[in-house]
């Protein structure tokens, strides 16, 4: 299993998929910072004073990370960043889902909203699962690169 997950072809495929997702998500948001700020506001997690700042910078973190995944430059850092960001995103989405559940009484498996991820209105349980998969993919890419570097040093 470990050999399969860390196989170069598997890692390369993951890198391209993650690069495509990050670039698409980032470019979607970079053209509509105000709209993205509004979506961030819905989470009730950030103070209003920094909503615009985050809305301007976060899409670029995604774009630059996407380019890193594509090119291989600063790959381990981008992979760790991907895992960290998606952990935060998953927690934030789950928190907002809980807020909606507590105020409206609807069930977790009935919730869908625009999470500000760049993909419009999405079904939330699936979105959280996607974020957790991206956390895992980030860790796999980071581990594979670290292992590759260690093997090269041994040789």
């Amino acid at each position, binding site marked *: 299993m470990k050999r399969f997950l860390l196989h170069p072809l598997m890692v390369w495929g993951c890198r391209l998929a993650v690069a495509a997702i990050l670039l698409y998500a980032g470019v979607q948001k*970079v*053209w*509509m*910072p*105000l*709209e993205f*700020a*509004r979506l961030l*506001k*819905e989470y009730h997690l950030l103070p*209003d*004073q920094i*909503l*615009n*700042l985050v*809305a*301007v*910078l976060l*899409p*670029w*973190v995604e*774009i*630059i*990370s996407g380019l*890193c995944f594509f090119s291989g430059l*600063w790959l*381990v*850092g*981008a992979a*760790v*960043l991907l895992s960290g960001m998606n952990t935060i995103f998953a927690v934030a989405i789950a928190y907002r889902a809980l807020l*909606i559940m507590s105020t*409206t*009484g*609807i069930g977790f498996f*009935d*919730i*869908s*909203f*625009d999470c500000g991820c760049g993909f419009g*209105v999405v*079904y939330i349980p699936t979105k959280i699962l996607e974020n957790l998969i991206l956390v895992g993919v980030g860790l796999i890419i*980071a581990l594979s690169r670290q292992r590759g570097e260690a093997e090269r040093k041994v040789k």
Partner: protein
Amino acid sequence: MKIFKQIVTILVVSFICGFGFNAFSPHGIDIFDNPWSKHASNDPNYQVEHTSQLGEEEPIVFVELYRACQFVEDQEGMILDVRTPEEYAKGHIPGAHLFFFYHMNEYYPRLEDQLKESAAILVYCGNIDCDDSEFLANELFNLGHAPILVYKGGFEEWKASHLPIESGEGETEGK
């Protein structure tokens, strides 16, 4: 340490790109001035500025009670109630369609054709502290619908003003 350096480098490059792009982009925004917090009900100046008639320059307009009344009386377009189905069933503005914001995937396809044909859309939720009507207005605008009026006072203000209400679980038929 190497990983940390890479992360910091990515963040620095991202910040430079972000600030640079925002400075020169036609969609650039004021980083320290968030209009969404001004929209949020407690800025009287904002509401006064935006209680005008429908205008092409303002695809989303914030309106007060009298303008909402006028919209309903003159049947200017579709009225959307973004509250829960239970709240809608207890009472809603006459002619309003149920459009529970957090089940947009369910309600939008059902009303899409009518929304396209509607000359204007009025959205409201529970009360002045509720942001869901504003959020739905933005979603609809992004989907190509305009003009949209957001009645911030919501159903509580409408009811407190002793204006007519409808009740029942069934959705109002389109005009």
